[in-house]
């Protein structure tokens, strides 16, 4: 049994721990216990458990393999783990996402469900075998059209699309397939970044023969992604790797009265276990990790989890905001101590607030002339010039296709390497060092490729703690990641919201008051900040803005792409639309009157030239089965920057190496750095050897909060300028040049030009570090958590056309026009990809996505990508993107981020379009067929 030791000092007792002994590893709060009890497996040397094996002879990518597989192994398991072909990925595990697609005898198959035994006598092609000996036209097309972002789903798309392409061209020559035909063929694939517009273009173009020759890829790492060579955390397979698995609570609220893992640890191949509960032994949401263990393979680990004995004292649970607000409801955090550090679903720090039962708040900090606002609403009520309504939004899950996963490996007792699927390599290294009491330089965090994040992979979460603790107790590398069920359960979510929205005007249509009272459902987390969003748009009128958190026994919310934004604008922009409608005014004219933001005003000018908007049909023009309508909505987001961001250039006769401890989660970090430096030097993007995703490099920006572009572009330029200066000096001295000056491509002088390559060839090793200098006029508020806020805010305006099938309740979005004011666009192609993906993610939120829990017991029901629905390729209409590049003159580099602003307005614009089409104003998301049917009947 566990022999529990105690400690008060961080960093006590690390490293190899004797057989059957236990230790407590101290960590800071990561949502689980600060002190983790661990225990080593009982076998002295790792034992391979006896397992049934079946001989399988199969040909993979042209090579014959004799494999021994378990009857229940999937083809995907075997190809990845036994053959090391990791290009095809595990996405959902139930055949919905297609990331695992391989060709079996030439036919694409979902291999996560395909028994490995069925590979016997068959020929398999993985992404690594596609276009062997050169790129397939489909791979070139994906590169040229930028048909990927994070790249995690790309292998599956490539394998499917090459089969489709080859069959299509054999039958139809170079005739281009329709979007409908492509959608039918690709129906079994999901892309969470929603690169679908580009995927259509790539597949149609490849079939039409447009990519039979060499192409240029606008995305720096496109080739690695289309060939399956990009290695994500899930793909790392060091020798002796153990697999971690966790025991998740089936109950939403319980106290664990007994936890006995002795039988599990006695099983052959089980190497160690860690207890993840706090001292109170209390579980506050279904799915919470109670303990984890590591074993020699996944099957053994899962069997061991079954052997763990747990006894629960099940307590009453409150699920959802209504139950949590009811009189006499069980209180999630009854003690003052519990309320100090609840999980935080926002990206900013938590402010101290009052509590009453499960209610935390009010947070009224962002109000302005609150009393005037109240009085003006009263007056407008009498005058009939107020909009009042309550809007409800659902809980949305990030469900990035690469789940939360970490692989930890200790070297001795004080050096640690952790691969993490993370949005913040540099920050994670700092946090890991602090929690395990290590020197920062002794911790190395690696994330060369990250399969999406969307906000859920910014903070230090359990997967890191589990992997590090298990690696320590087992003295071996351990990987621990969530399966899809767990990812949807505990991987992160956007809080649901209930927003009481009031908007008042005077008779002349001036806004006289805004009021929003928001209750946010972040489960056991807190941090709802809808009020901030309502402060930064139409900022002049008095307003009362209040946020409450309603804690309940549901998994914690996390920051999600534009935290609080989609909820806030769904309510506010419908209120604006209502005012315009009642007043008989153009909705753009109303906004223009209220809105001093120069970027959005430029977008109002743009939309006034958009014929589809200005020439839109009358309200409720369609009366038949199908009803079309057009709606508009705007949004604001912050412009953030991480001033500590650095870029290092090492130049030598071997070339130009650029490094920074940032990461690329599909947002294009690599591309904008390489492109900026390449353009400054006047060389090609691929002349730069860019290395990121390693915490050993100089401090790099997080990929969160739309800060990356504004944080990495100025230091890239700064570094390139320094390099040029040094190289000019070296060239002038070495070649004795007169009037030497840097020009694109090299050093110009009176006698001609020396290209950079010749200068580098004779240059000693040069190292320069680019910094992110301050903006002119400084920042809006002091830095918070290393993040500075620009004085300018980013802007969006979106026009959406909806079509409603009143017979079947289906809503579709044939056309979207979206304009963004985010300053200078560094990479037009990637910016467009990200914008279209963000719009689609917003559409997916508005129409389909919804986490559903059992209403009484709180366990997850929408536990896979069948029941948790995200937009597929067939749901994609036309999406036109407009960038307004003016403004932001005071921002260094003149660029602000794009990641969040693109996804904030779609739900609001869709709701306004539904109203335009039908006269029914949606107050609740998502717009499921049952809600649409009901709306049509009201």
């Amino acid at each position, binding site marked *: 049994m566990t022999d529990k030791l105690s400690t008060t000092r961080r960093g006590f007792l690390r490293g190899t721990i004797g057989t059957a002994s236990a230790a407590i590893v101290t960590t800071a709060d990561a949502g689980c216990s600060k002190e983790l009890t661990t225990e080593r497996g009982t076998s002295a040397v790792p034992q391979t458990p006896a397992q049934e094996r079946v001989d399988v002879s199969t040909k993979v990518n042209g090579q014959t393999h004799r494999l021994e597989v378990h*009857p229940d192994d999937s083809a995907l398991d075997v190809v990845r783990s036994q053959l090391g072909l990791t290009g095809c990925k595990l996405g959902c595990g139930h055949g919905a996402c297609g990331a695992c697609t391989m060709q079996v005898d030439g036919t694409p198959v979902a291999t996560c469900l395909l028994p490995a035994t069925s590979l*016997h006598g068959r020929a398999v092609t993985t992404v690594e075998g596609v276009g062997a000996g050169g790129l397939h036209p489909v791979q070139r097309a994906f590169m040229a059209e930028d048909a990927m972002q994070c790249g995690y789903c790309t292998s599956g798309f490539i394998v499917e699309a090459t089969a489709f392409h080859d069959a299509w061209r054999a039958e139809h020559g170079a005739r281009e397939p329709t979007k409908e035909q492509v959608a039918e063929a690709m129906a079994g694939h999901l892309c969470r970044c929603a690169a679908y517009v580009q995927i259509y273009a790539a597949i149609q173009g490849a079939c039409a023969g447009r990519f039979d020759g060499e192409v240029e890829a606008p995305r720096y790492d496109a080739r690695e992604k289309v060939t399956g060579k990009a290695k994500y955390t899930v793909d790392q397979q060091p020798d002796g790797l153990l697999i971690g698995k966790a025991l998740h609570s089936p109950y939403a609220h319980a106290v664990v009265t007994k936890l006995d893992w002795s039988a599990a640890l006695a099983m052959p191949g089980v190497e160690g276990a860690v207890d993840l509960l706090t001292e109170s032994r209390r579980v506050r949401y279904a799915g919470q990790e109670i303990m984890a263990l590591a074993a020699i393979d996944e099957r053994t680990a899962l069997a061991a989890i079954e052997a763990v004995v747990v006894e629960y004292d099940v307590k009453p649970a409150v699920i959802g905001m209504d139950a949590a607000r009811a009189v006499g409801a069980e209180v999630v955090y009854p003690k003052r101590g519990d309320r100090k550090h609840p999980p935080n679903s926002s990206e900013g720090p938590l402010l101290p607030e009052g509590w009453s039962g499960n209610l935390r708040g009010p947070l009224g900090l962002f109000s302005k002339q609150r009393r005037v606002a109240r009085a003006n609403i009263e007056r407008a009520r009498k005058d009939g010039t107020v909009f009042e309504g309550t809007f409800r939004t659902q809980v949305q899950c990030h469900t990035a296709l690469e789940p939360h996963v970490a692989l930890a490996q200790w070297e001795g007792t004080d050096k640690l390497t952790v691969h993490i699927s993370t949005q913040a390599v540099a920050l994670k290294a700092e946090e890991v060092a602090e929690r395990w009491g290590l020197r920062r330089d002794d911790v190395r965090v690696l994330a060369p490729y990250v399969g999406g994040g969307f906000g859920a992979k910014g903070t230090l979460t359990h997967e890191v703690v589990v992997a590090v603790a298990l690696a320590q107790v087992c003295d071996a590398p351990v990987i621990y990641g969530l399966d899809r069920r767990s990812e949807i359960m505990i991987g992160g979510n956007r809080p649901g919201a209930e927003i009481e929205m009031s908007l008042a005007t005077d008779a002349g249509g001036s806004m006289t008051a805004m009021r929003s009272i928001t209750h946010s459902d972040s489960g056991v987390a807190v941090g709802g900040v809808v009020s901030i969003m309502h402060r930064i748009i139409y900022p002049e009128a008095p307003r009362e803005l209040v946020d409450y958190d309603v804690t309940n026994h549901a998994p914690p919310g996390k920051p999600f792409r534009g935290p609080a934004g989609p909820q806030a604008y769904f309510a506010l922009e419908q209120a604006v639309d209502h005012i315009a409608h009642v007043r008989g005014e153009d909705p753009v004219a109303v906004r223009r009157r209220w809105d001093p933001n120069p970027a959005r005003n430029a977008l109002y000018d743009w939309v006034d030239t958009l014929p589809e908007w200005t020439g839109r049909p009358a309200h409720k023009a369609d009366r038949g089965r199908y009803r079309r309508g057009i709606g508009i909505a705007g949004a604001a987001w912050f412009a953030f920057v991480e001033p500590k961001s650095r870029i290092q250039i090492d130049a030598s006769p071997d070339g130009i190496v650029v490094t920074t401890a940032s990461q690329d989660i599909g947002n294009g970090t690599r591309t904008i750095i390489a492109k900026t430096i390449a353009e400054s030097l006047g060389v090609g993007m691929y002349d730069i050897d860019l290395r990121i995703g390693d915490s050993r490099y100089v401090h790099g920006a997080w990929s969160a909060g739309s800060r990356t572009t504004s944080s990495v572009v100025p230091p890239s330029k700064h570094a390139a300028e320094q390099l040029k200066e040094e190289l000019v000096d070296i060239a002038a001295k070495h070649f004795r040049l007169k009037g030497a000056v840097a020009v694109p491509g090299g050093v110009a002088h009176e006698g001609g030009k020396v290209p950079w390559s010749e200068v580098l060839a004779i240059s000693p090793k040069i190292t320069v570090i680019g910094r992110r200098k301050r903006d002119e006029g400084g920042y809006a508020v002091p830095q918070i958590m290393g993040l500075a806020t620009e004085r300018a805010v980013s802007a969006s305006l979106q026009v959406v056309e909806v079509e409603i099938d009143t017979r079947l309740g289906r809503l579709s979005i044939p056309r979207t026009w979206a304009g963004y004011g985010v300053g200078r666009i560094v990479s037009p192609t990637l910016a467009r990809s990200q914008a279209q993906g963000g719009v689609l993610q917003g559409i997916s939120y508005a129409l*389909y996505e919804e986490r559903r829990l059992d209403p009484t017991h709180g366990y997850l*029901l929408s536990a896979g990508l069948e029941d948790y629905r995200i937009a597929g390729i*067939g749901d994609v209409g036309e999406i036109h993107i407009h960038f307004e590049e003016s403004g932001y003159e005071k921002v260094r580099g003149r660029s602000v981020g794009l990641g969040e602003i693109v996804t904030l307005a779609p739900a609001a614009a869709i709701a306004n379009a539904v109203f335009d089409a039908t006269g029914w104003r949606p107050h609740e998301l998502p717009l499921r067929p049952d809600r649409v*049917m009901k709306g049509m009947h009201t």
Partner: protein
Amino acid sequence: MIRFPTSPSEVPASAGGGPSPVIRAGGTDLTERRRLRLAPGPLIDLRDVIGLDSIDWAAGAATVGARVTVAQAASDPALAAAYPGLAAAAGSLATPQIRAVATIGGNLLQANRCWYFRNPDHRCLKSGGDTCLARAGDHLYHACFDRGPCACVHPSTLGMALLAYEAQVAVHEQPERSIEALYGDGSDPSRDHQLPDGALLTHVVMPAPVPLERAAYFRTISRARAEWPLVEALVRLGLRGSTIEFARVAVGGVAPVPLRLPAVEAALVGNAMDRTSFGAAANKAREGASPLPMTGYKVDLVEGTVLEALERASYATPSAVGADAAGSAGAATPKDGA
């Protein structure tokens, strides 16, 4: 334990004691259920079985081997000519990567998709528990024709299609049975079909095709594709002149078993193939509905989906059999519609 029998006779009926053996064909449903610990027991893998993988014709009617893949059924020209609704349904279910592997037999005998049934931590009526968790919980996607203690909906699109085609299934060493008999009336909460453990479904036996039938399959979902149906319907119509003289209508996604809608069929037969009779007939699809608190919308969708399928059937090209294959189709004539 896994066994690879090479013929149906090597498939053991049932092992006494211990969990019953589990038959695996394509594995597209079973693989996940085994991961969820919902189908323990030794595996009988049909990989090496010789036969059961072809579509055979006798007297103009097809017999479809249980190991024929859904993709094969969807793309077989003769099957599509004779039974256009069946081929359309096969081509519309799941995704291409699933259809390539999933078999006809597996599709008919798959387990339901209820999110309580598939939760490994909680037991419902179909996974060894004593109560339907959906009924008291969240049943947004569940039955609107309540047939018993279990509130799930049957997952098999092909079962629904074959019900409309009045097909029989052959089970090794057992008499053929109808689709109704295969599934029962939906009141048995313990199982998704009525075959005994270890029984091997070997073939689907189609009746003689109906010449010149107009058929349509339609699936109502929230997204454009790749979603389990909220409601699905298959309609087959036969005309004499402009009068409907033969109608078969079945729906899925609404009850623990696929349902035929005799009231809709009766409302069609003898009437003109037009908007009025379609509207009146589709309205009959609501008859007998008994929605749960959260599934009232599905009753509207059943009507809408049946109407949609009726309209699509009316535009459909009449099946070829009877015109150019009259010889082989032999004496096939439309059965009465009542």
